[in-house]
């Protein structure tokens, strides 16, 4: 599902965010990406969502190498990846329903289907009945769940989340993570970047640890030549 092969990412300002990173995430797997801030977690997610392209190495997502993808194919690629942000990136002037429906509208779904699936997504995150409210009228936790509903509404095979619980208290955080686990249980691949060790321990999923742009925890790594398939850290 996600394959990083000796990936390095250097930004125009000269900072090398990732150095020779290799890992594989299987279809339907849920994986945590951890490490201090600045370790390269966001860079990994940006490479997966094709917000950035690798400087060296190859990133393959949903069977497509992102380095060679033509720009006109990027929209179709992004529709296959649901993205959740720490600051949820909702449109403040649109009601909850419109925010959640956006990926379907963009993809050209029929109106009936948009209505049905947006409601289903809101139901999944427990926000059915708040469709007409504006994001600002919701609590922070609810806003984050709207962001999650938007990420899953078009049923992408892959969901990535960047510190989705960064602004939430521990109880809410756990609730949001359990939501992600439910998606993973039905076959969706989930990659969550977080620095919340408590949550990582609680959910007992595989963990990829980054430090200064390199993969640090290589427990279970078979060697440099084969791609590391990290075992769950318990």
């Amino acid at each position, binding site marked *: 599902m996600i394959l990083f092969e000796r990936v390095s990412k250097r930004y125009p300002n000269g900072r090398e965010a990732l150095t020779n990173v290799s890992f594989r995430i299987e279809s339907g797997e849920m994986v945590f990406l951890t490490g201090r801030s600045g370790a390269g977690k966001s860079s990994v*997610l940006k490479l997966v*969502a094709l917000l950035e392209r690798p400087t060296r190495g190859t990133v393959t997502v949903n069977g497509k190498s992102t380095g060679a993808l033509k720009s*006109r194919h990027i*929209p179709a690629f992004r*529709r296959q990846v649901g993205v959740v*942000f720490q600051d949820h990136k909702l*449109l403040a002037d649109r009601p909850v329903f419109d925010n959640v429906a956006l990926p379907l509208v963009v993809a050209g779904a029929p109106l009936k289907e948009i209505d049905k699936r947006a409601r289903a997504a809101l139901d999944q995150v427990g926000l059915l009945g708040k469709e007409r409210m504006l994001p600002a009228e919701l609590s922070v936790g609810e806003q984050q769940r709207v962001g999650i509903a938007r990420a899953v509404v078009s049923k992408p095979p892959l969901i990535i989340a960047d510190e989705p619980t960064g602004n939430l208290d521990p109880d809410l955080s756990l609730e949001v993570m359990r939501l992600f686990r439910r998606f993973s249980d039905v076959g969706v691949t989930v990659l969550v970047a977080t620095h919340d060790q408590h949550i990582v321990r609680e959910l007992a999923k595989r963990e990829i640890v980054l430090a200064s742009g390199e993969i640090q925890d290589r427990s279970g790594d078979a060697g440099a030549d084969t791609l590391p398939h990290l075992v769950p850290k318990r």
Partner: protein
Amino acid sequence: MRPAIFGTRHAQALLGSLGRLKRNPLATVLTLLVIGLALALPAALGLFITNAQAATGGFSQAVDMSVYLKSAVPLAKAQQLAADARQRPDVAQVTVIAADQGLAEFRKYSGFGAALDALQSNPLPNVLHVVPRGDASSAAALESLRRYFAAWPEVDVVQLDTQWVLRFNAILAVLQRLVLIAAVLLGAGVLAVVGNTIRLEILNRRAEIEVTKLVGGSNAFVRRPFLYTGLLYGIGGAALAWVILEAAVLVLDQPVATLAQLYGSRYALQGPSGQVLAALFGGGMVLGWLGAWISAHRHLRSIEPRA
């Protein structure tokens, strides 16, 4: 994509653009006013020319000349010369105005009847009134016809009665060119106004554009509402220009009628024709759409989602 969905998405983009324009009424009205004035000015000039042509239409086509024969030339010779002239392909009609007939008309219309009685003989010569064919009424063709008659030994003077008409037509042609220049310049102005308005709106909606691209919105999808906004500006501006033109016609109608009456004409001012309106709305739509497209093409590219 199925046609129904395609139509729905365009309808959504159109309604969205309309809604946004309605939410900022002052900015929208100001932009429309600028576009409307820019479109109305060349249209008004064009309307002036059309009216000037129509008002003078009766005689501006009647290009003719009077060939004055020497007073010694008898009427019979004049008839013969007229028959010769009729053979020419560029001559439509030749009428002989005999000296006696000319004197009778002069006596009747000039008011010098008593003075003329004092004359011993008729001082007027025989005259040929020549009407050239329609396709030979250009200045050059008329000049060659004039030379043809002037070369006859029996001819005293050839007078192009309608030289002023040619001049008038030439003035109108200059004005027409001016309209063209004004239309091009003001059209460029409309492009710039729409382009800049769209640019500001794109910058205002940067966050929305980023999110839309992030969830897989194509450039065409992101661009669509802006193109509709440009199109709406064009249509609205054209409608405003129409109102301006009709208002101007309404205000000028009375004085123009009075002026026409003084010249013994029943001419009534003509409003914009269907053709003018089609050009107005067509031009407005094309300029609005194009301005928006150029702006969107330039500025949407640079907006890419950031994490």
